[in-house]
């Protein structure tokens, strides 16, 4: 074969060799087919553990009850017992270790998520007690009059 054909050929073969060599170092050992299907199970296995290690932020009512049993007892007698504490108080994270006080959202907008009047027939939303925002004590906070832990009682 002529030189002008051979030279580029060696260069091409060299490049392929380099890429194959780089691949050995760059592709992790646990990368491959882990499961029944090449189409859906071709991945880096340790990534599953990485996702499992993602930090949990919302701890749930049971976790709150460890210290705030009194508040939980108050909500138990109320229609608000179904609401998670962290919906209004924010995600606990590692409270009280990392955050001493959780910032409570007392904004009207938070209550209006459920209690803004939407007259929809045959919709669970219409079963909730509701107000029209602009017609109901426009400049007051809801918690001035309503106790969020038990709305059937007056504010604390």
């Amino acid at each position, binding site marked *: 074969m002529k030189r002008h054909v051979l030279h580029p050929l060696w260069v091409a073969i060299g490049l392929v060799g380099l890429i194959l060599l780089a691949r050995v170092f760059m592709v992790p050992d646990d*990368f491959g087919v*882990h*499961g*029944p*299907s090449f*189409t*859906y*199970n*071709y*991945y*880096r296995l340790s*990534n*599953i553990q*990485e*996702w*499992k*290690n*993602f*930090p*949990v*932020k*919302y701890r*749930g009512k049971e976790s709150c009850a460890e210290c705030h049993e009194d508040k939980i007892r108050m909500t138990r007698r109320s229609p608000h017992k*179904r*609401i*998670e504490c*962290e*919906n209004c108080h*924010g*995600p606990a994270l590692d409270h009280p270790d990392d955050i001493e006080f959780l910032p409570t959202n007392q904004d009207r*907008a938070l209550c*209006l*998520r*459920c209690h*803004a009047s*939407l*007259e*929809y*027939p*045959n*919709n*669970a*939303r219409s079963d*909730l007690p509701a107000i029209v*925002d602009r017609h109901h004590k426009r400049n007051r906070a809801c918690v001035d009059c309503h106790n969020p832990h038990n709305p059937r009682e007056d504010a604390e």
Partner: protein
Amino acid sequence: MSCSRRQFLKDVVGGGLVAALPASAFVFISSDEAKAALAETKVRWAFLVDTTKCTGCGFCVTACKNENEIPFDAPVTRTWVERYVVTKDGQTHADSPMGGRDGFTQREIHGQEIEPEDIDKAYFVPKLCNQCDNPACVQVCPVGATYQTPDGVVLIDREWCIGCGYCIMACPYGVRFFHPVKKVADKCNFCYHRITKGLQPACVQSCAFGARRIANLRDPDDPVTKIITTERVAVLKDEYGTKPNVFYIGLDENVR
């Protein structure tokens, strides 16, 4: 037909090589390996949405964004709530402002006030990743950065994703988006870090009305699995053949 010795030898060697190639593709596994593979499939995560219970408060979207570190004010979200209002003139009005993150507190839909007496029906539909049995998003990934775990959840490898966006286009449900901070594709993973610890997904926990529930389809005693298997449930866009695993109670034909 004539055949030289040279040609004959060539054909035999060449044909033998071609025949040997597929044989190497067969992998024989031992009985122990087969057992281990079966043990992995004791869990198959699925989801049940009861649209008749959803009130459009949007606490699920807020909880999801906080739990999964999705930028709060960016117009992207792993789960969202859609509102559908069907009026007496046969029109369907749908909206999902900021994915329903702040709840639905206004009557107006896209600036249009709809009088209560004009409404035939109205409902809220929460949406999230369907963790399909045949995920189109995984098929198109050119680098193997997204995949299906043995328990059925589709995950994204943030180290491996190159951000090409093929998967975002491929998902028929539009659940994938480009994470504005991590610069990779992102989507709901049923809060994989929570369900694998025995916790509920953040959206399920925050739902005060029981509209969202998580199920293990491989556990016949799971109460939510019982609902999925014995009651009348529907899935979104069945015609795409993706075999979605988010089941809906009360799904209306107007839901897209």
